[in-house]
């Protein structure tokens, strides 16, 4: 049996200030993060002691400087929210990390809760700027000038699965999955060959197969070995190769199918060699082929399209699940994956209610033909950027969603609930509830710990090495029985 898939996403947003020639991203990010009303009195540190971003999954530590801000700066840049998420400043971008969840529907709800929280923060922060200035935030991955920022996915996997095997099977899967989860981009960057429009925002930026880096010479498989959990048991696969999606179907398939494939790899069910020759070149070629008909050379011989590679993986999955009880969400993901691949093989433009890159391509081609423009026109570039604007009245994705032109997976209630409360079935429940109940006494937080300030006594750090403990079922009764943090800590440490 594969491990239950604990998952989470980290979305870095683009940020700018309208009518501000001296725009400083970092100070505006700090303003944005601090303008968000969640639990304002709380002054909670992000606990960097627990982090080791320079450990490499291939078994060595990499030389480098670990970033640890001073206490004041730390509090100004980090907010841990009562839904268990982290909203913070990462380099020059606002970033929203969802709490740990156990299924793709919750992932969707929390990632979309992030969009709405960012928008709420954006409105509040803009009110603090001189009149005429307004913060603008984009859920995209590139400025079209060679600068990229990420959407990272995290999947808890079994450490017993050799990393080499993960790399071998995940590479062809990741190189080809963009056909259903790319966000689309006008033009190319980073010295990739010119094109009018391509499937992925990110693919132009990948320059190597496997490495620790995330900011330069980006790898298809990132090797950061920082499980934020019991190191002996778990590995956290940190995928940096994906685009941020606006539409729910693309996120649903991206994360849903990736979870399924990882489970199969852990279980030894990925039994085919689907390695593609020169994946670093092919990831860009797949992105640059919106017809999805191009064929790529396979290591085992012969040539296949990206759709065919995905269909072979789907076939492995169908075989794998034929003898198992299938969770209803997993089953729904499988059905949609199959239907989507069929449409991609037939005519990708059929997916213009479901898949970001197709939705945006349809929108732009219609606009171009109605207004008599070409792909290089500034208005076309504006459409490309504004599709990702998180303001409901300005963002073109949201405009389409409002018109009923986009297929949904979850409803608005689920998103609103995710803004205010943690998931109930992971340790994020304990984190979120502690912040809600004892916010004045929470001193510091990391994914796998929470520490309390009990006044006279030394800081008490509670470790949470098991992502599936600290759930509502485990701790609600305990929390209810402890009106004060002193009682909670006494109960936990006795």
């Amino acid at each position: 049996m594969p491990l239950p898939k604990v998952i989470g996403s980290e979305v870095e947003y683009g940020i700018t200030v309208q009518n501000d020639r001296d725009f400083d991203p970092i100070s505006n990010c700090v303003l944005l993060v601090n303008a968000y009303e969640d639990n304002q009195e709380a002054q909670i540190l992000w606990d960097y002691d627990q982090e080791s971003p320079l450990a490499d999954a291939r078994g060595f530590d990499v030389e480098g400087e670990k970033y640890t801000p001073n206490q004041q700066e730390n509090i100004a840049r980090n907010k841990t929210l009562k839904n268990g998420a982290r909203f913070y400043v990462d380099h020059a971008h606002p970033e929203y990390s969802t709490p740990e969840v156990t299924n793709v529907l919750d992932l969707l709800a929390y990632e979309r809760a992030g969009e709405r929280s960012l928008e709420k923060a954006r409105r509040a922060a803009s009110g603090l700027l001189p009149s005429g200035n307004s913060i603008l935030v984009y859920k995209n991955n590139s400025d079209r000038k060679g600068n990229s920022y990420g959407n990272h996915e995290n999947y808890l996997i079994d450490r017993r699965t050799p990393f080499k095997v993960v790399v071998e099977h995940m590479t062809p899967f990741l190189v080809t999955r963009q056909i259903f989860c790319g966000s689309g981009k006008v033009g190319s960057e980073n010295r990739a060959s010119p094109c009018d429009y391509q499937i992925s925002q990110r693919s132009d930026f990948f320059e190597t197969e496997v490495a620790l880096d995330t900011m330069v010479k980006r790898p298809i498989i990132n090797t950061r070995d920082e499980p934020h959990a019991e190191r002996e048991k778990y590995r956290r696969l940190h995928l940096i190769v994906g685009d941020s999606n606006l539409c729910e179907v693309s996120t649903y398939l991206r994360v849903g199918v990736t979870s399924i494939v990882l489970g199969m790899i852990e279980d030894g069910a990925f039994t085919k060699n689907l390695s593609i020759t020169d994946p670093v070149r092919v990831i860009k070629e797949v992105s640059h082929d919106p017809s999805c008909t191009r064929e790529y050379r396979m290591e085992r011989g012969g040539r296949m399209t990206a759709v065919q590679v995905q269909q072979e993986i789907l076939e492995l999955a169908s075989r794998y699940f034929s003898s198992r009880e299938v969770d209803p969400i997993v089953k729904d993901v499988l059905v949609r994956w199959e239907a989507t691949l069929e449409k991609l093989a037939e005519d990708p433009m059929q997916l213009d209610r479901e898949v970001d890159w197709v939705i945006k391509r349809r929108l732009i081609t219609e606009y171009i033909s109605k207004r008599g423009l070409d792909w290089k026109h500034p208005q076309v570039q504006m459409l490309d950027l504004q599709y990702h604007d998180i303001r409901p009245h300005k963002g073109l994705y949201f405009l389409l969603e409002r018109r009923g032109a986009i297929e949904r997976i979850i409803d608005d209630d689920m998103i609103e609930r995710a803004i205010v409360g943690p998931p109930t079935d992971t340790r994020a429940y304990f984190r979120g509830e502690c912040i809600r109940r004892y916010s004045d006494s929470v001193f510091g937080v990391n994914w796998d710990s929470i520490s309390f300030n009990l006044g006279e006594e030394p800081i008490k750090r509670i470790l949470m090495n098991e992502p599936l403990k600290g759930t509502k079922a485990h701790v609600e009764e305990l929390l209810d029985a402890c009106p004060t943090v002193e009682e909670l800590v006494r109960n936990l440490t006795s």
Partner: protein
Amino acid sequence: MRITKQHADDALIGVWSAADQTHKKRSSDSGNGAEDTAGDAGGQKKIAKRGEELKDEMDSLIDEIDEVLEENAEEFVKNYVQRGGE
């Protein structure tokens, strides 16, 4: 032939309309649909009417986009510069 063409247009523009679930389904098997309705003048009229509606829908979408699209696109896009992240 004309009807087949109509279906192709449907497939192109129907996607943005709110009430197009059934339409969408039909356009995905446009080959058969065209044959079924070819001899049916009422059906033909219906399709033409639907085509009109969808065209209007698309026109209204493009107009709505123009209302919200940032002004000075060239300047705006030029000024959108990010530092690399991650």
